[in-house]
C-alpha cells in the first residue's frame, strides 16, 4: 500500500535500435508486397496465417521465452520495440498476439513440461492462435462470479457452460479459460476457479459468432457441452486461479497496444494539417503529442520494471486507464481539430474514413481487458483505500 509511484526514465538500449531498424525494414517489405495497408485499419483480415509465420521465422514471437521452448531469450524492452512498431504500422498480428502477450507466459509458468514442449514452440513459429475464456453471459468484470463448470472425470475434467466476448474463438487453436471446480467458500468468494488449457477442436465445443457494432467479427460465444480436458491441461492450482490471475495483469495492461489503437488518426491529422497549421490546430496537435509521448514513456518504464523482475501492478493499471481513455478520445479530438478545414483538403477523404472507423471502435477500448472502473479499483487498492 503506497502512494509512491515510480516511473524510471528508461532509455532503450542500443540493441533495441538495431532491432527497430530491422522491424521497420521487414514491415516496409510486407507493405510493399501488399500484405496489409497501414493507412486502412479495419480493412482486410487482421488474421493472417502466412504473415504470422513470417513474424515467427524472424524470431519476434515469444521473444523473451527460454530457447528450449522455441523462444529467443531477448529482453522485455526488445519485445516492446517489436510490439509498438507492429501496432503503429497496423500490421495483422491477430493470430499470434494474445498467445505471445499472455497465454505463452501463463503456460511457461504453470503447464507441465511436455505440454510446454509441445505448444510453446508452435506459438513461437506463429502457428497457434489463443483465446481467453473469462467472461460469461452472467459475469464480465466480476470474474469470480463465473459459473461454467469443470467436473472431475476419469483422467481429466468435463466442462459445461459458456464463455462470451471471446475474441478470436472462431479462429483459435486453444483457449485458456477459468472454470468453476468448487463453490466459492464463505471466507473467500474468489475460491473455486481453476485455469484450464482447452483444445478448441475438442468435441462438445460450439463457437457462435457475435458481430460487433463496427460490422467486424471479433468476439464470440463459446458453448461447452461435456467437453473433455485431460488432467495435464490444468494450469496451476485447482480452485486457486485467483492467486494466479493478478500477476499477469501488468503484462497485459501496460503495453503500447493500450494507447496506440487509434494512432493512425493522429498521423492522418498531421498529414491533413500540413506543414503550417494555424494556432488552434497547432496547439491541439501539440497537446495530443505531449499526451502520447507521456503515455509511451510510462509504458516503456513499466516494460523496464518487468525486465527488472518487478510486478508493477498499479503502474501497469494506470497506463491502461490513461492510455485507453486517451485513445478513445483521440478520434473525437481529431474531428474537432479538423472542423474548420476545407472539405477538399489533401487526404480529407482518407481522414474521414479513418475517423469513422476509429469512432465506432472507440467505445470498446475502455472495456476490453479490464474496464476503466475495474482498473481504478485496482489503483485504489494499491493506494491503500480498500
Amino acid at each position, binding site marked *: 500500500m503506497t*502512494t*509512491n*509511484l*515510480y*516511473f*524510471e*526514465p528508461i*532509455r*532503450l538500449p542500443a540493441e533495441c535500435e538495431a532491432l*527497430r531498424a530491422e522491424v521497420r525494414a521487414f514491415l516496409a517489405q510486407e507493405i510493399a508486397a501488399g500484405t496489409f495497408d497501414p493507412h486502412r485499419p479495419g480493412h482486410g483480415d487482421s488474421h493472417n496465417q502466412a504473415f504470422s509465420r513470417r513474424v515467427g521465422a524472424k524470431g519476434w514471437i515469444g521473444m523473451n521465452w527460454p530457447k528450449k521452448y522455441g523462444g529467443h531469450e531477448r529482453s522485455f524492452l526488445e519485445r516492446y*520495440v517489436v510490439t*509498438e*512498431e507492429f501496432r*503503429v504500422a497496423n500490421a495483422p498480428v491477430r493470430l499470434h498476439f494474445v498467445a505471445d502477450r499472455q497465454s505463452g507466459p501463463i503456460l511457461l509458468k504453470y503447464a507441465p513440461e511436455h505440454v510446454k514442449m509441445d505448444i510453446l514452440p508452435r506459438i513461437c513459429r506463429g502457428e497457434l492462435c489463443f483465446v481467453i475464456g473469462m467472461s460469461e453471459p452472467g459475469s464480465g468484470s466480476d470474474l469470480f462470479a463465473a459459473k461454467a463448470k469443470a467436473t472431475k472425470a476419469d483422467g481429466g475434467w468435463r466442462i459445461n457452460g459458456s464463455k462470451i466476448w471471446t475474441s478470436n474463438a472462431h479462429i483459435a487453436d486453444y483457449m485458456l479459460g477459468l472454470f468453476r471446480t468448487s463453490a466459492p467458500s464463505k471466507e473467500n468468494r474468489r475460491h473455486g476457479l481453476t485455469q484450464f488449457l482447452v483444445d478448441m477442436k475438442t468435441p462438445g465445443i460450439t463457437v457462435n459468432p457475435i458481430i460487433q457494432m463496427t460490422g467486424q467479427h471479433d468476439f464470440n460465444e463459446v458453448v461447452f457441452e461435456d467437453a473433455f480436458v485431460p488432467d495435464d491441461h490444468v494450469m496451476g492450482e485447482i480452485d486457486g486461479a485467483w492467486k494466479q490471475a493478478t500477476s499477469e495483469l501488468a503484462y497485459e495492461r501496460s503495453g503500447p497496444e493500450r494507447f496506440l489503437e487509434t494512432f493512425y488518426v*493522429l*498521423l*492522418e491529422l*498531421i*498529414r491533413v*494539417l*500540413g*506543414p*503550417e*497549421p494555424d*494556432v488552434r*490546430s*497547432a*496547439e*491541439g*496537435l*501539440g*497537446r495530443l*503529442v*505531449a*499526451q*502520447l*509521448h*507521456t*503515455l*509511451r*514513456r*510510462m509504458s516503456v*518504464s513499466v516494460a523496464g520494471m518487468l525486465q527488472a523482475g518487478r510486478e508493477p501492478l*498499479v*503502474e501497469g493499471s*494506470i497506463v491502461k*486507464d*490513461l492510455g485507453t481513455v486517451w485513445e478513445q478520445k483521440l478520434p473525437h479530438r481529431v474531428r474537432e481539430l479538423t472542423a474548420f478545414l476545407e472539405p477538399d483538403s489533401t487526404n480529407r477523404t482518407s481522414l474521414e474514413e479513418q475517423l469513422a472507423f476509429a469512432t465506432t471502435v472507440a467505445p470498446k477500448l475502455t472495456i476490453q481487458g479490464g474496464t476503466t*472502473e475495474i*482498473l*481504478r*479499483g485496482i*489503483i*485504489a487498492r*494499491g*493506494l*491503500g*483505500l*480498500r
Partner: protein
Amino acid sequence: MAGENNHIVAEVAARIFADLADPQTINRAKDERWKETLWHALDEAGLPLAWVPEELGGSDASLADGFAILGVAGRFALAVPLAETMIAGWLLTRAGLLAPSGPMTVAPVRPHDRIEVHQDGTLSGSAFAVPFAQSSRHIVVLAEDSNGAVIALVEIRSCQLSEGQNLAGDPTNVVTFQRVKPLRSGPAPAGFDRSSLMLMGSTIRSVQTAGALEAMLSLSVAYANERVAFERPIAKFQAVQQNLARLAGEVAAALAAAGSAADTIAQADLFDDTVVLEAASAKIRTAEAATEGSSIAHQVFGAIGFTKEHALHRFTLRALSWRDEFGNESYWAAELGKQIARRGADEFWPLVASR
C-alpha cells in the same frame, strides 16, 4: 557529489526541508523569519549553487542530482527561490561567469519577453512575472543583441521592480531594465538562445509540479482514510476511490513526463528537437495534471482544504502558478504542434520512438 542514481544530495535536501520548511508548520508561522534560517541551511549544504562548478563558486552537482533536489522541493511546496537560484547559477555557468552568493533569479521567464543589450553592454527591456525578484540579490539575464544571446549578471537593486505575487503569494515581479550595467557578462554558447532557457525552466517547473502532485496524492489518500462520513472513512466510497485513482494517474503522468525530460536534458549536449519534444511535453502534461490533480485533491478535502489554515493550498496554488512560468501549456503545445507539423507525418513516429 552523489552518483547519478542514489541522489544523496536529494536526501540532504529532504532532511533540511523536513526540519525547516515543513508545509504545515510554516503555514502557521506568524512571520517570514523561517525563510532566513532555511536559506542559511540550504546555502551551507551547497544546494542553491548545485549546478555551478567549483571553480565558479558552486558545489558541482550533476544535472540529475539537481533535478532530484527540485523534485523534493516540489514535494514540500518550497517557497524560497532555490529553483530560481539553481537555474540562475546554471545560466551563469553557460557563459563561464563566476556565481555570487545569495538568492538569485532569472529573466526572462515569459517566452516573448526580450531584453536588449546595447553596444555599451548595458541592458534595456522588461521581463514580466519574474519569480522571487524582490527576494533576490541578483538576477541573471539572457539578453540579446544582433549577434545573438548574452548572459549577464545584474544586481537587483539596479533594476526597477513592480510589486506582485503569484496565486500562492510568492513574489513575482515585473523587472524593468533601463540602461542597466551588468556586474559581468559574456556570450552564450553557440546555439543557446531564449528558447533553450525556456526549455530548461519548463523542465524545472515540471519536476517541481510533479513533486507537488505527489504530495497532494499522499495528503489526499491519508485524509480519505481518516475522515469519517456516513459512518465510514470516505476512502470506502467508490466515488472517492475513483477520484483518487484518477489523481494517481495524473501524478503518474506528471512524474513520468517530468522525469523523462529531466533525464533527457541531463544527457543532452544541445537543445535539439528531442529536447523540445521532452521538455515541452513535460510542461504541457504536468500543467494539465496540475489543473486536474489540484481540483481532485480539493474535492477530496472538502471545505477544510479550502481554508488558509490547512496546508493543501500551498501545493495546489504553487502547482497552478508554475503552469504559467517559462511558457504555459498552451504556448508549448502550439510550439510543439508547429514543430511536428513542420517535420511531417512520416517523421513523427521516429521522433516519438527515438528513446
